[in-house]
């Protein structure tokens, strides 16, 4: 509480600090079933498509996507940890995290809770900062969990098959974690921007999913090969840059849809950083300038 005194003679109360607001947001996220469903689904799908299905294919002695069985086993081993843990992030992981961001921001309008939060006295920018920091915290936890889950499964496979367990170095792991968090945060905050701009969840999620799963795919696979303007345009798309960054982090061939090195890793990281910063700024602008009626 501040020691300042109001004109009316009452001591000036201040609202909660940023760390306190982050804790409030973490409580909301932690208690919300949708958070666990969306954040749990990505590592689970990642595990199934990166390790489980290829390993079953190897065990049955059949080739997987044209790769001979012995090479399939190699794709599941610990040295491929970063690629195997993150390859789903640009496409289906991105769709799930965009949905989470849209739910986080959009439902505040649907439930009328934003006015309740603001009525406690914090500045609007502080509310946004608290929500973004809480989202980054859970996304960091999820990226770390995906890495740990994939590491554990790869170690089991390597142990079971007597294959070498060559783990990536700490630097590679740190770059993988940072890059994964950047991709995850970009999708999550873009979801928040949609939820705030559209003041709700349904349309925000619908439009976001159409963009991630359809529009970008059409631009990359249909329009870009035909028209140069789209070939240039695709280099500025968040999904394309997310795929390029993960491809660069994976360091080898990743056969997951959406993971294609259209631009180099550094450029992809800058573009995603710009999307992240731009989405936060635009969300803040909408939040600060608009009436809450």
């Amino acid at each position: 509480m501040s020691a300042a005194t109001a004109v009316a003679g009452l001591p000036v109360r201040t609202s909660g600090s940023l760390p306190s607001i982050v804790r409030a947001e973490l409580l909301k996220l932690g208690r919300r079933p949708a958070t666990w469903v969306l954040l749990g689904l990505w590592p689970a799908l990642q595990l199934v498509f990166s390790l489980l299905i290829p390993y079953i294919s190897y065990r049955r002695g059949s080739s997987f996507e044209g790769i001979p069985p012995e090479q399939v086993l190699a794709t599941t081993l610990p040295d491929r940890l970063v690629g195997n843990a993150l390859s789903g992030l640009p496409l289906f992981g991105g769709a799930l995290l965009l949905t989470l961001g849209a739910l986080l921001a959009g439902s505040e309008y649907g439930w009328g809770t934003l006015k309740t939060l603001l009525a406690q006295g914090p500045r609007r920018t502080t509310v946004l900062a608290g929500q973004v920091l809480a989202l980054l915290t859970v996304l960091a936890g999820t990226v770390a969990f995906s890495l740990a889950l994939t590491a554990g499964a790869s170690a089991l496979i390597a142990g079971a098959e007597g294959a070498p367990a060559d783990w990536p170095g700490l630097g590679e792991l740190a770059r993988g974690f940072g890059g994964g968090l950047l991709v995850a945060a970009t999708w999550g905050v873009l979801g928040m921007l949609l939820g705030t701009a559209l003041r709700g969840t349904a349309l925000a999620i619908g439009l976001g999913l159409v963009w991630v799963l359809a529009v970008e795919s059409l631009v990359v696979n249909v329009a870009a090969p035909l028209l140069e303007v789209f070939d240039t345009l695709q280099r500025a798309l968040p999904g394309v840059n997310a795929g390029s960054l993960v491809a660069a982090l994976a360091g080898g061939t990743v056969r997951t849809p959406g993971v294609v090195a259209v631009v180099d890793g550094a450029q992809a990281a800058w573009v995603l950083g710009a999307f992240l910063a731009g989405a936060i700024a635009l969300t803040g602008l909408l939040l600060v300038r608009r009436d809450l009626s």
Partner: protein
Amino acid sequence: MTTAPETVGRPTGPAPTVPATPVAEPVVVTDRLTKRYGKRTVVDALSLEVRRGEVFGFLGPNGAGKTTTLRMLLGLVRPTSGSATVLGRPAGTSVAEVGALVEGPGLYPYLSGRDNLRVLARYAGVGAGRIDAVLDTVDLTDRAGDRFGTYSLGMKQRLGIAAALLKDPALVVLDEPTNGLDPAGISEVRGLLRRLAGEGRTVVLSSHLLGEVEHLCDRVAVVASGRLLVESTVEDLRGLGRLVVDARPLDTAAAVAVRLLGPDRVSVVDGALHLQTSPGETAAVNRALVLADVDVTGLRQEARTLEEVFLQLTDGDADLPPDAAPARRTRRGDR
């Protein structure tokens, strides 16, 4: 059929003086506060004042601009022009000291009542100890662990009020706290409002329950179409009650009444004396008439309710004489 009232006699004697009472400092002041959405003016040059420690009723029909005004006081909506100060500072900068429930309780359906308050306490910078206190105040301790989404409407409103009280605010703004409630829910909220008023907080209450406003509020403002129609104490707004006297001979009775009350408070309507009196004056009127050998065959006190005044004001006839209110209600009933 009701005929127009006929004033009797002329003023005599000095006007009664009202003892001066100290006026508490204002905690909410709006000065020509205006909000427009496009060409639509929702709040139109609203100037009013809420004083410390009073329970202030904010009345008006749906769409009158009450909620928009309250949102401007809380900084949720920006005024188009004009200004507002709350607790001595520009509106929106003192929200941390105001407890508010605006347009229903906006809380998280998947969180328990206690967790909702925990989230808000962290936003408000309030210690967790206040949570139990406000849950106790609204009598929700037993259901605090249940999800908000499972609460009845009355419980939701009570939790919304609990949220408004978390900061132990000096000023509480409650917008339609009884909206959508059944009689039991209204009764629950009514009890709470009485407790808040009893604790000496400044309360700004927007409500359609005019009976509650009438009994709880010290002063009221009536708005319609975004404009302030009147700001006054409840007593002044209702004016004096009406004593209807059936007496014979009528002219003698009227003369006695004029001598007793003054000509401004006496009129003859449909062969009966209509006297503007307080309930305490009834016996004196009766005694004076009997002493003057007037046969009193009927004597009934008719107090104007706030509802009558409200309907009169918001129907665009704010300048009707006090006696016209019941007639207007009759006409409305005939439609």
